[in-house]
């Protein structure tokens, strides 16, 4: 029976959540400006493939990451240009693109399937990694994992702490009003799509070059994009809360591996699939938390009120509604 070692468990949660965090925060940034990029799942697959192939051919991990980020930005730009400038339905474009990118990844990546390629080396942070408990959990990882931790803070600061972030939010809330104040909503949405797509690309690279190294069919990253889309909602369009959701999901996945060891008679698929319905369940709880009955339930009880506040989160008012200049 597998020993439950809390330090190791938490460390693998932090590492396993890294790509999900890249994807979730990327999408949060895009959606803050009012645009939904539904191509996430396919983008992660294609960028994972490109990252692996690039790193394999050039023997450079960094180039692999850069190429993946480029792919992510490119696919996001496609959704953005089609929906913002060519008046196509953003959901349809994103959906078609996600299927196309996934199939393209399997097709083009086929010759590189199951090859041993380069992968990021663990990079313990000097001194900090020697700290008890905190050291192994936070400071003994691949460098993309550190990047994911930094990104949570930086994204939050960008969105809520900078003038640029305020402009981004204003476009998602009311593009007409933003236009009246001298902001070009379409440019802003394009920019947010590019920036978000870049991080989604990094998610793919983190899978292929660090967390689930290698390329193949299946790669192991399948489905992450859809979960990231749900986590954006879970996080109430707040990067920190969304990241917490990513950790929750990674935790469910890791605990599933342990449970598999403890209950060998239960089919392995149960534990692999369980995190997905559990995530939907939490989303439902969040939905009910916003109902009026929940508010009445929380009346006059401070802890209930702060709980509801934590669960609350409103979508940008004009999310998914395309902006058309007058």
């Amino acid at each position, binding site marked *: 029976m597998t020993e439950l070692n809390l330090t190791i468990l938490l460390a693998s949660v932090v590492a396993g959540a890294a790509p999900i965090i890249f994807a979730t925060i990327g999408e949060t940034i895009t959606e803050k400006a009012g645009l939904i990029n539904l191509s996430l799942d396919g983008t992660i697959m294609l960028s994972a493939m490109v990252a692996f192939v690039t790193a394999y051919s050039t023997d450079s991990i960094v180039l692999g990451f850069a190429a993946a980020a480029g792919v992510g930005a490119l696919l996001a730009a496609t959704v953005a240009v089609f929906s913002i400038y060519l008046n196509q339905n953003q959901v349809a474009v994103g959906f078609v693109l996600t299927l196309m990118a996934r199939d393209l990844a399997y097709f083009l990546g086929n010759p590189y399937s199951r090859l041993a390629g380069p992968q990021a080396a663990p990079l313990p942070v000097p001194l900090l990694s020697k700290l008890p408990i905190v050291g192994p959990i936070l400071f003994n990882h691949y460098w993309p994992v550190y990047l994911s931790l930094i990104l949570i803070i930086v994204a939050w600061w960008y969105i809520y702490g900078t003038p640029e972030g305020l402009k981004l939010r204003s476009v998602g809330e009311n593009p007409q009003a933003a236009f*009246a104040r001298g902001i070009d909503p379409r440019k802003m949405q394009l920019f947010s799509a590019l920036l978000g797509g870049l991080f989604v690309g990094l998610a793919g690279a983190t899978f292929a070059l660090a967390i689930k190294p290698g390329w193949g069919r299946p790669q192991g990253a399948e489905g992450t994009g859809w979960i990231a889309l749900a986590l954006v909602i879970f996080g109430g369009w707040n990067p920190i809360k969304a990241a917490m959701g990513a950790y929750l999901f990674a935790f469910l996945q890791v605990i599933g591996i342990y449970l598999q060891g403890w209950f060998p008679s239960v089919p392995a698929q149960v534990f692999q699939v369980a995190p997905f319905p559990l995530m939907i369940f939490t989303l439902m709880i969040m939905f009910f938390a916003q109902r009026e009955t929940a508010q009445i339930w929380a009346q006059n009880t401070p802890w209930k009120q702060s709980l509801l506040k934590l669960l609350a989160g409103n979508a940008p008012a004009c999310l998914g509604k395309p902006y058309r200049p*007058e």
Partner: protein
Amino acid sequence: MHIELKDIHKHYGPVRANNGVNLKVEAGTIFGILGENGAGKSTLMKILAGYIRKTSGQILLDGHVVDYTSPAIAARLGIGMLYQDPLDFPALSVLENFIIGQRRGLTQSNQSFCQKLQSLADELHFALRPDQVIRSLTIGERQQLEIIRLLALGINILVLDEPTTGISSLQKEVLFKALRQLATAGKIVILVSHKLEDVEQLCDNVTVLRRGKVTGNMQAPFDAQKLLKMMFGQIPSTPQCGRITPGKTALVMQGVSASGGRAGLEKCSIQFHQREVIGLAGLEGSGQGVFMRVAAGLKQPVQGKIHMYERDVTDQDYHVFKDYGGMYVPASRMEEGLIPSLTIAEHFALQVSGEFWVNWSKAMQKAEDSIVQFSIKGQKQTLVASLSGGNQQRLLLSFLPSNPKLLLLENPTRGLDVESGHWVWRHLQKYCRTDACIVFSSSELDEIMMVADRVLVFYNGRIIKDVPTCETSVEELGRAIAGKI
């Protein structure tokens, strides 16, 4: 400084929203633009503010032709506008709304914006708290913020599109005082309205628009009769107010409390009768809105009992309310009553169609009839979003069933010109004669005094006054609205 508009045209397909408009405004004056619904006032002002582009014509600032393509460039030239439907960000704070669109130095902190906001607000006697969320403000406060924001941008020409619609009389006083102060300081203030009394109180000059053209100019002091004639072509007749004896009880509430809005609703007990017209007065969000939503079954009360025509409807929903002959028309016509991206005909198709297929011929016929009967300025295929505010309201009223028993109307004449407003009331009074009970809210005390038999004043979620209109006065009601009984 002066600004001149020369031969402005704006065409939407066959619609001539502006058809050769000329006007000239001098610095230090308050200039009024009057006109009926759909006259083209908003269109003209949006062109001046750079929000929409003119089809042809010229704008001259101090004698030089200026051409701009966006509100931001207009703002740099000193032209700013307060739009008819507020263009702000309800989810963001007052301070954030103030900052968006302001140029900022690299080192400029939010603190300095906060100070600027405070000092401008103090100057004009506006009370605004920087950390409040816009959603929790009244329309009047949102306007105040917008004015301050425009001034911070360095605006010299301030355009206000129907600023007195939906604000309290107190806020109106504060607003007018501020506008006079700005004009005295040498700025140009342009006030768009369809209310004569606004223009009479405030303006030095006025231009009247009708069907996209200028029909006249006048200088203070104004001759109201002449202005009305310029606006409508003839002097509109007022609704008749024959007092009728009330019939059966239509709506009874006993100790009803509910949450929502700014103040909720507390221990409200009322009794309304058939053939009665009841006006609900009070500052926006004092409980009138919640009252109506509770009565209509759109919101469940926390406690209390509700009866409608002697049947218990407590905790029943809107469908039951409708089945019993009730009808509710919300104030936010675009959010709850109409679907902006559908045409007039499609709205009727939604009304008349059965379970499985759209009855287009019936819908078309009904649309055509209603356009004539309600004199809606638009065609069957016009998108509802492109109707003027007044015409959207007429369309909404045309959906009322032919023999309702209880009508709940939120601000039924908001944004309507005198003629349309009177028209609406003449129409509604027909229902009264057929035994309906009409409950409506309004921010215009004059309107309540004119058409209602009884008035209830809401203050902080409570009904603090319930009197027949013939036993009270505008002054007394005004005091009650402010909480002084």
